[in-house]
């Protein structure tokens, strides 16, 4: 079983935390999914299959022509935050 402190570390790296009891549920879910994935690993010759990312081979793909088209006004860029100074989004000081 995956250690709770590890799960907490993973959650924290995703920038959130959970309640203790929630980590316990998660532990159980990990058991389930890992067991199922173990079974998948046992499918014969699985490692020789090329992983699939796109549902089918799309022959109709075009890269975009390099033209300026739609973009936002400064107002729209800042529309969803009230934390703004000089037309920029304000955040606590970023220490580099």
């Amino acid at each position, binding site marked *: 079983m995956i250690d709770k402190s590890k799960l907490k570390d993973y959650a924290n790296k995703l*920038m959130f935390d959970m309640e203790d009891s929630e980590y316990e549920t998660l532990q159980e879910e990990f058991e389930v999914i890992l067991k199922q994935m173990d079974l998948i690993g046992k499918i014969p010759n699985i490692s020789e299959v090329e992983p699939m*990312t*796109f549902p089918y081979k*799309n022959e109709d*793909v*075009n*890269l*975009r*022509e*390099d*033209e*300026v*088209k*739609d*973009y*936002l006004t*400064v107002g729209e*860029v*800042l529309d969803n935050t009230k934390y703004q*100074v*000089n*037309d*920029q*989004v*304000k*955040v*606590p*000081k*970023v220490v*580099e």
Partner: protein
Amino acid sequence: MYKVVIGLEVHCELETKSKNFSSAPNQFTKIPNINVGTVDLGLPGILPVANKEAVKKALFTSMALNCKLPDEIIFDRKNYYYADLPKGYQITQNTKPVGVGGYLDVLVNGEVKRITLHDVHLEEDTASLEHHPNYSLIDYNRSGIPLLEIVSDPCIESADEAVRYLEDLRDLFLYLGVSEAKSNYGQMRCDVNISLMKETDTELGTKVEMKNINAFNNVRAAIEYEIKRQSELLDKGEKVVQETRRIAEDGKTYSMREKVDAVDYKYFVEPNIPSTPVTDELLKELKDNLPELKLSRYQKYIDLGLSEEDASTLSKDRKVSDYFERVIEKSDVNTTVNFMTTSILSTLNKLEISIDELFITSDMLSGVVDLVSKGDISLDHGKKILYQAIDESKDPNELIKKAGLHQINDEEELLELIKSIMDENSEVVRQYVEDGNMSAINFFIGQTMKKSNRQANPNKSKEIIAKELERRKNDGK
């Protein structure tokens, strides 16, 4: 003495009209948040749409850097959280970069050094942060600008090599027309990885990383400082700490943070950008447009007999070099070099224009060079005419024709003119003959030029004047 091992990761913003994955403008500006699309802001529901021109320029650069090119274009996501990364991931290339391997040959102190590359990949720039004492501000203009990252192997051994490599890379970007590569606009930046090892060591020493250095002289300063700092540590038997440092204005480097465990970026293939094939057609198009590169031109010029300095000057900028080559196709090399390295380049500097904005075409220059090299006009004269032509935006060859400014080379014609001048200035002749006043020669050259409307060949005139004065001296005896 330690062996220095440096690897450089160079980031270069590609010059395109729109961003890498959105149709917002890719343009440097100091006005915040005016070049931002929904994609660049990472709004819910956005999808990246890859820019054809950025992909082409990336492949073109890889080709020029002798990389192995991929059979298809795909991108990957690099996942991490940071204030300047609105989507929470950067679209980059991990599985199949636009270039693998490859190299750039650079000239360091007269020797060719081959800088080998790990890979070249196309990605997107982040937003920029402006730091204030108590807060930071985010400007998304830079977010999504196409960025080419060129990762070298750890094969660079000195600050000289590093800076030379950077300069040559910048010249390459300009040669290829893929980027303006202005480091003061942050269009070219680099991360430096440096470690020291004993000559006898088989494993690399502990690596120190310095991120996002813009100016090349800061790269030099940072490397030189680190070599000194790390040498002193090792001399004392102390350990170099694996960490990220930054270069400060005093030219010293300071620790920013120690490396904890390596960040896991959880790369996976970007599912919103289906693979597009790199076709033979495209490869041919790129190959056909690939120019002869700087080093090759430099070596060609050396073979033509140019000095190292001239060869370097004339090969540095592709347009200047192309212009130069068009002139020497028809005209004398040495005379052309003389015109190029003086009149032409100084004019470009003075007017702050590029050579294709210059009124004087390569054909015009070729005409002037021919007149000079045949001795029809003097070099000085040629240059004067050239400056006049630039001032007046006129063809110098027309000016020469109009003013009848062909040089008088006929010795008899010159002698006749000189004799008449001497006859009119017998006192000066006397001073030479009797007092041995040598300045008389210069006086007569001046007069000859004046009377001939500066058409007399000055060298020939000088010869004839000297002979005629000697003759008169001997006659007088």
